[in-house]
């Protein structure tokens, strides 16, 4: 009996450790694999040219990723600005002010929204957002636009990020102990003061982590953005001009035009870039969260 228990204990232990090491190794393996495939282009060009040059002429062997990085950053920031404050206030309202019933109705709706495949958001973007931007929003600013633009990409991304971030924020706010809210109120805080001093303060690390994950998701999102953003090489400040984010570059071209030397490797470099940037975003937010948790 004792032997069996000891052996089963050991087996479970080994199994869990193996799983853990595999999970830990996974990102390293992906990173190494991408680097290995991207090595030719990294060897052939200076990193500075790859990252900061605007010249993208694969036929001539010129690979400047700046337009792609710029577009990616642009739509991500736009999506974040559009979605983050909205999610924050919605989550606070749903968990702290609204009726309990409202939250119970909203939760499944949010889950459904989060579960819709991104291609559906893309189609919706093409059918609704793109024409709306072309016909109403752009003229409002006196600009002509096809509608396939950074703005459309940002809006579609924002809509996709909302259920994702909202879900996390609601969870964060729900885990804050009622006793802490009671303490604040009983000392004379108004409901809104209590929200500021307890909910936002105590939930701050959680808010940051929800935002961080939301940004990372937006940065890497591919299909929906690709469908509405225009996919044109351009570095423009105007949200009404088209762009060409990194994930779209990979998805549009992988498997094609392999006859061009180094093209394959360039796409791998794009993937590596995406991977590294998302890693940096995550680490940055982790660090931030760690800092705020000390309070």
């Amino acid at each position, binding site marked *: 009996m004792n032997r069996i228990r000891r052996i089963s204990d050991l087996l479970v232990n080994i199994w869990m450790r193996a799983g853990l090491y595999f999970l830990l190794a996974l990102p390293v393996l992906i990173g190494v694999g991408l680097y290995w495939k991207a090595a030719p282009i990294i060897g052939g060009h200076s990193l500075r040219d790859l990252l900061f040059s605007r010249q993208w002429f694969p036929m001539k062997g010129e690979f400047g990723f700046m337009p792609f990085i710029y577009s990616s950053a642009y739509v991500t920031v736009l999506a974040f600005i559009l979605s983050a404050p909205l999610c924050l206030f919605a989550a606070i309202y749903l968990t702290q002010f609204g009726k309990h019933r409202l939250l119970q109705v909203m939760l499944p709706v949010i889950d459904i929204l989060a579960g819709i495949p991104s291609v559906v958001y893309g189609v919706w973007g093409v059918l609704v957002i793109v024409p709306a931007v072309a016909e109403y929003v752009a003229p409002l600013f006196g600009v002509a636009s096809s509608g396939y633009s950074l703005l459309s990409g940002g809006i579609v991304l924002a809509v996709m990020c909302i259920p994702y971030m909202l879900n996390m924020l609601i969870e964060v706010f729900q885990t804050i102990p009622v006793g802490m809210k*009671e303490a604040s109120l009983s*000392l004379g805080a108004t409901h809104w003061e209590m929200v500021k001093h307890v909910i936002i*303060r105590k939930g701050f690390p959680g808010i940051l982590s929800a935002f961080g994950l939301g940004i990372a998701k937006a940065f890497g999102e591919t299909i929906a953005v690709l469908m509405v953003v225009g996919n044109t090489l351009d570095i423009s400040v105007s949200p009404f001009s088209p762009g060409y984010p990194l994930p779209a570059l990979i998805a549009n071209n992988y498997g094609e035009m392999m006859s061009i030397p180094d093209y394959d490797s360039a796409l791998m470099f794009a993937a590596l870039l995406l991977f590294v940037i998302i890693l940096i975003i995550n680490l940055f937010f982790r660090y931030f969260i760690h800092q705020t948790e000390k*309070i």
Partner: protein
Amino acid sequence: MITYPVFSYQKAKRMVNHQEKQTPIIEIKGLNVRTREGEILKNINLKIPRNKIVVLLGPSGCGKTTLLKSLNRLTDLHKELQVSGEVLIDGVDILKVSRDLPAMRQKMGLLSQRPFPLPVSIYRNVAYGLKLKGIRNKDLIAHSVETNLKRVGLWDEVKNRLNSPANSLSIGQQQRLCLARGLAVKPAIILADEPTSALDPISTRIIENLFKELKEHYTIILVTHVLRQAVRLADHVVFMYYGDIIEQGHPDDILKHPKTEVLKKYLVDGN
């Protein structure tokens, strides 16, 4: 010749004071708290006398905490609870006020069953209520923080780490911090839900003695499961059972000569 009646200001003041002492500070009329599953408090009627220690006794789950929380309307936070009836604090029904709610809550310092320090430093926990009151004077706040931490016997333990997070304290220390925090807003009433359940005998003594002292100026409603503590502190004992008040009165009557079977059994098991 017309003679005017001579009013003695002192005498009038004494009369008013006397009258004030007579009227209960809290009067609960027909208080019901229920959820969809059932009733938690059933038609509670209770008068809390001024400057006395009222002890709530009763088995676990009988509604003591719920009663305390209804008094300063923290039941608002639990949307599933339906509260009806009247809770008059100095004659004002707290269940009906809206804009004055924070100010009315400040009349009552709550010491919850488990301590919940706010997610800020030790110092700011005690200063919190003062800042909400609009007090900005740094010296005044610092003085109040020190005095109140001393009152609960915590000052010497924390005076060198006032800026560290409050949740770095032990549970017993947190409990005393929460009491200091509540006292700092100068409430008239203290709602204490098993305040000494996490404390060692020495800290318990400090708190008990503090309560006896505070009675001069405060009304204290104390929930406890420790019968000996009830004997030591109570001026008035209320025994609750399944959301009802079964018996109440002077501790000598209630605890020595219980009338109902449930209370007899509770006292036997408690000793």
